[in-house]
């Protein structure tokens, strides 16, 4: 059996990868993928905790997180779509009409 610490470290690494992806990548779709990666890293940590604590609530929480992630993706992708119709670009560096 894999020790809980190892799973938690993997989850932390995945989460950090997601954060770095959001900060460094320039394509909106890839940024959204990174956010999904962060949410899945959280799911992994919930699984690890639930197994270590032998409790079901953590597992149940994950179902809700998956649903919320899907809802967030729906809203996010439709906003991206409507922006793409107007601008014909998905590079975040070009979304800069709003500034000081």
């Amino acid at each position, binding site marked *: 059996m894999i020790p809980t610490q190892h799973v*938690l470290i993997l989850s932390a690494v995945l*989460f950090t990868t*997601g*954060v770095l992806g*959001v900060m460094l990548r320039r394509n*909106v779709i890839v*940024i*959204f993928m990174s*956010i999904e990666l*962060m*949410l899945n*890293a*959280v799911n992994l*940590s*919930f699984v*690890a*905790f639930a197994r*270590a*604590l032998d*409790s079901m*609530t*953590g597992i*149940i*929480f994950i179902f*809700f*997180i998956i649903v*919320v992630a899907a*809802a*967030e993706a729906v*809203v*996010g992708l439709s*906003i*991206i779509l*409507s*922006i793409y*119709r*107007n*601008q014909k670009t998905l590079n975040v560096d070009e*979304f800069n*009409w*709003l*500034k*000081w």
Partner: protein
Amino acid sequence: MLMLPELIVIAAGFIILLLDLFLAEEKKNILGTLAFAGLLIALGRTLFSFGQQGELFGGRFVVDSVAIWFKIIFLLAGMTTVALSWDRLTGKTTDIASRMKHRGEFYTILLFSTAGMMYLISSRDLVTLYISLELSTIPLFVLVAWDRDNPLCGEAGLKYVILGALSSAVLLYGLGILYGLSGSTDLATISQKITHSPALWLSVAMITAGIGFKLTLVPFHMWAADVYQGAPTPVTAHLSVASKAAGMAFIFLLFYRVLGGAFQEWNILFAVLATITMTLGNLVAIIQQNIKRFMAFSAISQAGYLIMGFLGPFPEGLPSMLFYLYAYIFTNLVVFAVIIFYANETGRENIDDYRGLSRTNPIIAGAMMLGLFSLAGIPPLSGFVGKFFLFSVASKAGFHWLVGVAAINSTISLYYYLRIVRQMYIEPTMEDATTLQISPMLAGTIAITTLGAVFFGIIPFFYETINQTVAASDWWSVITATAR
């Protein structure tokens, strides 16, 4: 029927969504009336349930007086937003660009968001807390990006959805650690089981970052200015009051209920956050030209004052915070109602464009001036009384330096609020200026919110009522047990 207000709001949302499919375009005015009526009935039902306490679903949904006070704020904010968006959605504005389409969906999404906020303050479990937070936030992403032909709107929506999803993921990681440390998702159990450990600090840091985003605490405020400017103005008004109140509700649940046992240490965290938030918000607001951006930074600095209510483990903190929240929503909505009125009629949104408003529309300019003075904290308006209570909480908690910083910040804020008053009263009128016609809906909103902003400060019984009803809830015993 403890959950009745929430169910009414959700039912109204679904009814509007269905009716929207069948009604002819010219009959759709009834949708706005329905949305307003639904919120009004829910508000009546909430007011009627004062003094009741109870729980549903094995203690996962609890109604007490604190929850009721917060629910009234959310419902009032929702009703005001319906009123403020009325002219734009019915196409009665002089400025064609500021009209909004798809009103059926607009009201539905607004009502769902309101219901999410109402569930949020009643939650006593990490799962319901997270779900209701997302139910309140995800509809707001849609509302911000409402006008899909306007590139500014789309950009604001995109920034909001990316940063919002990022912050909710960070928050969720913090909640996960909390679950791992305590082995439970029930808030009461967590508060008994947690002990000081580095993992707890990591969890608190991540929760603070996630919720700091909603509250626009510096350094998590970067989205606010762009989103406030790009979003349709009624949505901006809704964001600046309802979303902020939801953030306060979340902080109250997590930091007062869960981490209350070890509260003394969080004081310094909140004091530092309050200091940098109000200072940066104020300093950047001075140089703004666009009035919506200006209000964004004003709202950031107000968030800095608001979290001063969380200093100290004694019972005065929460009533002061609630009172200021009420004063703040009324005052802020006065200013936004005037901004919406002016943009509806002229399409102008810059601070310079307000010059001479006192001569073309003296009553509206007077209401705006009262609102701005109340935000700056000039006696006897409600903003002053609210700040007085909050500052006394900070000083009672031993943060005298913070009171000094906050007083200096209030003075700075008076400078930039007076910039608008100067434009309205001293600068010459614009060449093409004529007296602008105000619609009955906006006139009523401005009148009611102005009365609220003025009388909350003058009538002392309001703070007393909050104090007494809050003292009767179970939250009180948690705090007094900690203080002893």
